[in-house]
């Protein structure tokens, strides 16, 4: 299939539909509006459900209901709206329901602004909602990757019965890049995808079926039962931590004098700076976590070459992934951080200047 020039917000929506998503519930917010509008246009064409909910809270609870039926379902929002969804996300994680949540991050805290930012890293990877749970969090670095992650997120959600968040930002949402889509799933394939969940999900008693009483629930009033449930969740998360690590090594060599760590939009800019420095004979490597939970701690640690004198973290926040990098580095070398906030995106020249100071 030929490449199409598309905004990230539209590309992820198209890719979700192709992956078998036939249910989408959301509430409008900038800078993800193209996503909800694309779904409003396209869902009726595939006999899917588009519903503009009365609130983010209602939207995520509609997702809870649809996911409880084992169907591929998605919602999307931007930072303040994601905060409102956190109640429902906790229930979804507790009830072990598969679904995909897209966060097109903007500047915060509070109402913040509508420019790209990475200030929701803590919220996405360290909790956000109440209780002991984890989201699988994928952080795209391009429009193509944003689109590819839709199907990957649904696969992971189905595989682990866990909510998956795609943590993009206003830049990736608004930017146009060429995208190539995978073939769309057929209605028959989508039907089969739903049936894989029949052992636990809400569905009718078909003729000849053994009568079932499935419960979509996160309540366990007996502490011993809840203890067992939470421990089982953590066993699941431990498997995910083993199997679902994803990162990109960029220009990582033994002669690196600096190792950068950056994710999402920030990583693109760092790459440009590294290329400029490379042309000037200065060797800088970068690890880009693609999944930010589970976090590739070992990959970061192993990328610290013999000549690396500093690990430099660049983010569009005040230093959030920085904590994970410090855990990974474990004091082996100094860790430095530089970032921009308020929805202001740093330039390659600014990153280059920061890196040159280290030589």
């Amino acid at each position, binding site marked *: 299939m030929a490449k199409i020039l598309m905004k990230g917000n539209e590309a992820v929506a198209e890719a979700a539909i192709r992956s078998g998503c036939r249910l989408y519930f959301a509430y409008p917010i900038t800078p993800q509006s193209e996503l909800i509008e694309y779904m409003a246009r396209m869902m009726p064409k595939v006999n899917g459900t588009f519903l503009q909910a009365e609130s983010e809270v209602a939207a995520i609870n509609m997702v809870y209901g*649809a996911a409880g039926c084992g169907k591929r*379902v998605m919602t999307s929002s931007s930072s303040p709206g994601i905060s409102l969804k956190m109640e429902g996300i906790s229930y979804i994680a507790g009830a072990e329901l598969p679904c995909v949540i897209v966060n097109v991050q903007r500047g915060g805290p509070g109402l913040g602004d509508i420019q790209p930012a990475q200030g929701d890293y803590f919220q996405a990877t360290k909790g956000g909602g109440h209780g002991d749970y984890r989201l699988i969090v994928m952080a795209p670095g391009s429009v193509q990757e944003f689109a590819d992650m839709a199907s990957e997120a649904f696969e992971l959600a189905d595989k682990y019965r866990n909510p998956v968040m795609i943590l993009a930002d206003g830049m990736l949402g608004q930017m146009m890049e060429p995208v190539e889509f995978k073939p769309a799933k057929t209605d028959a394939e989508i039907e089969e995808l739903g049936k894989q969940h029949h052992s636990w999900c809400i569905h009718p008693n078909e003729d000849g079926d053994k009568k079932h009483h499935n419960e*979509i629930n996160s309540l366990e009033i007996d502490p011993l039962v809840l203890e067992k449930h939470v421990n089982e969740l953590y066993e699941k998360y431990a498997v995910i931590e083993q199997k679902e690590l994803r990162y990109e090594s960029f220009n990582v060599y033994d002669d690196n004098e600096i190792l950068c760590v950056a994710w999402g939009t920030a990583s693109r800019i760092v790459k440009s700076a590294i290329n400029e420095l490379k042309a000037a004979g200065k060797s800088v490597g970068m690890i880009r976590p693609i999944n930010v939970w589970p976090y590739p701690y070992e990959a970061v640690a192993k990328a610290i070459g013999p000549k690396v004198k500093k690990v430099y973290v660049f983010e569009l926040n005040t230093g959030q992934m920085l904590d994970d990098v410090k855990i990974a580095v474990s004091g082996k070398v100094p860790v430095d951080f530089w970032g921009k906030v308020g929805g202001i995106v740093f330039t390659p020249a600014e990153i280059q200047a920061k890196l040159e100071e280290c030589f």
Partner: protein
Amino acid sequence: MEKIAYRPESLTSTPFTYCPGCLHGVAHRLIAEAIDEQGLINQMTGVAPVGCSVFAYKFFNFDMAQAAHGRAPAVATGIKRARPDMHVFTYQGDGDLAAIGTAEIVHAANRGEHMSVFFVNNAIYGMTGGQMAPTTLPEMKTTTSPYGRNTDDIGFPIRVSELIATLIAPYYIERVSLLTPADIIKAKKAVSKAIQYNKEGRGFTFVEFISTCPTNWGIDPIKSRDWAKENMLPFFKLGCLRDKGEGVE
């Protein structure tokens, strides 16, 4: 020999967790009987609320979901949109539906969402220990209105059925009571009608039950019913507010 006393197939054998004299069990049974009678058990699903009936997902004998406080109509919306071949109801109390869940109930009703909502109004929060509800009567004492509900400070009780009846889409809205055997028979008719309209795909149906809370009111079960008749029914008038099937608009 004719079997005259039995558990409806739509109820599991899990014992109810309600206080002595509580009427939730009666409301559950009416819903279960109506589902049985209309042969819907294989296509039925329901959403349990937060509150005393939080365990309703264990009591109904088909697939059930448990929802966050007030969110049952949103969860039911997601279920119905995902499984249009099934019939869905929510079961909610006044603290759940009329306070934290006002947005969800109003908008599900306004969309004419294909679901039945069974709303139990006993003018108090039960499970959390007798706090003031949006339906608590003026001057009524609760643990969070210890000097009586002061309407100058906190407003008047919300008449939810009337509120829903201001919307165009809802197909059927009726307020019934569980306070006397005769009222329970009438309530059964309303429940059956809601389930029947649900089965026929007519849209949003809403039944409000006037009920009691002997434990948190601090009144014995029989006297609780008398208290409700004297105090609740004058404010929450029984009757059908909307029945598009019968031309009542």
